[in-house]
């Protein structure tokens, strides 16, 4: 998914039936990038919708209130939401939502209706307790927040804050909302990722559309470091990811995946024509997505190994123990819809464990143990 910091970027989507979809990335009025991908869902303007609540979905009823119309490529939005949408005139094309599949509670993005999106507007940070429903607002001012990222100990949230003078990274203590500005500066910031120790943050900064840097900063604001510079039109997000031992950061640049040591040594390309790096829990491999499949690139030198082929699109996530990989994806042999699949990290046959999911990365429950369910569709439980 493309996620950029507001307010200057716009994402324009073009839907083409039976062909690859196209997305144009524009900076102001200037087109700065494009991408091809799987067919995008076609939506009518009247089917734009607004989802103003967070809903924990029943496993048996995935993703209401949005449902797919049989035999059609359109999302269907319930009447009341269409009416609400018309009132609010929303144009967003991405929504985040939640669903659970066979026992695993997953946080996902909803690919929603709308032809043109303005990504970002003033937003504030909230935390809600899933059990009690108690909600707290952690920020409340004129700045716009985005990209919240939990610290590994769950006590802090890092987030991007944007105001008239530019962007910054803030760290908010959850218990009392105490806020610390960790870094200020020019450019758009995104891709916040905590180091495993919780001492540092990696992020990507774009002073201009074709120039961006991978940087780190200590959580107390010290030790700001620039690790890599790139000049390219970023069509896919760099997705910086710390290695489990915290020594390295994997990221995507253009259509290649790199690893850069946190000590400042030069980055090394580990996989060409790849994106969306995900470290294996043992840190020995980086799972990457290529045009036609999932591959594991060794942390040490070596060619990427095929894990799953004949895929049109995939958004993978390692199980916590690294034995399995779950992904939302579209297969060549399938019905061109996104389903949730599970496979062994050693490769082998795909198991479809949920139908008609959305095109984003699933999230495993804490323990990630999986076993076949009574229905035979697969179950994962913590």
């Amino acid at each position, binding site marked *: 998914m493309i996620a950029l910091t507001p307010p200057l970027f716009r994402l324009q989507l073009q839907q083409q039936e039976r062909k690859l979809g196209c997305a144009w990335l524009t900076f102001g009025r200037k087109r700065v990038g494009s991408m091809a991908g799987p067919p995008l869902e076609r939506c009518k303007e009247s089917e734009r919708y607004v989802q*103003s*609540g967070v809903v924990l979905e029943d496993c048996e009823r995935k993703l209401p209130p949005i449902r797919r119309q049989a035999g059609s490529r359109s999302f269907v939005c319930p009447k009341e939401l269409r009416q609400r949408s018309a009132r609010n005139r929303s144009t967003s094309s991405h929504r*985040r939502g939640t669903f659970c599949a066979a026992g695993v509670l997953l946080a996902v993005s909803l690919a929603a209706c709308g032809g043109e999106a303005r990504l970002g507007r003033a937003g504030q940070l909230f935390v809600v307790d899933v059990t009690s429903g108690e909600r707290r607002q952690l920020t409340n001012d004129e700045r716009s927040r985005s990209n*919240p990222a939990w610290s590994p100990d769950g006590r802090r949230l890092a987030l991007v804050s944007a105001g008239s003078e530019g962007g910054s990274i803030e760290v908010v203590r959850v218990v009392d909302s105490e806020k610390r500005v960790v870094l200020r500066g020019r450019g758009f910031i995104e891709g916040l990722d905590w180091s495993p120790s919780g001492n540092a943050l990696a992020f990507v900064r774009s002073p201009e559309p074709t120039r961006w840097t991978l940087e780190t900063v200590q959580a107390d604001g010290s030790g700001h470091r620039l690790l890599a510079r790139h000049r390219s039109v970023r069509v896919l997000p760099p997705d910086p990811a710390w290695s489990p031992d915290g020594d390295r950061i994997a990221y995507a640049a253009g259509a290649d995946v790199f690893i850069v040591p946190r000590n400042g040594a030069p980055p090394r390309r580990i996989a060409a024509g790849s994106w969306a790096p995900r470290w294996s829990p043992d840190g020995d491999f980086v799972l990457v997505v290529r045009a036609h499949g999932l591959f594991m690139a060794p942390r040490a030198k070596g060619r990427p190994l095929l894990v799953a082929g004949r895929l049109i699109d995939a958004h993978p996530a390692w199980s916590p123990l690294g034995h399995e990989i779950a992904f939302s994806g579209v297969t060549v042999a399938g019905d061109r819809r996104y389903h949730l699949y599970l496979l062994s990290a050693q490769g082998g046959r795909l198991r479809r464990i949920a139908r008609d999911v959305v095109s984003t990365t699933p999230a495993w429950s804490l323990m990630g143990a999986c076993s076949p369910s009574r229905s035979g569709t697969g179950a994962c439980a*913590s």
Partner: protein
Amino acid sequence: MNLAHGKARRLTQLPDAEIRDLEWSPDGRRLAFVAGEVPEED
């Protein structure tokens, strides 16, 4: 809460707001999210 067999429920709601950037806490007990006003169409 048994999520495998539970009914859908609304966890929280902010009228006329758009909720995005949902992130699970590491312990799986909380959700962080960003909510902002629904934008006006150009």
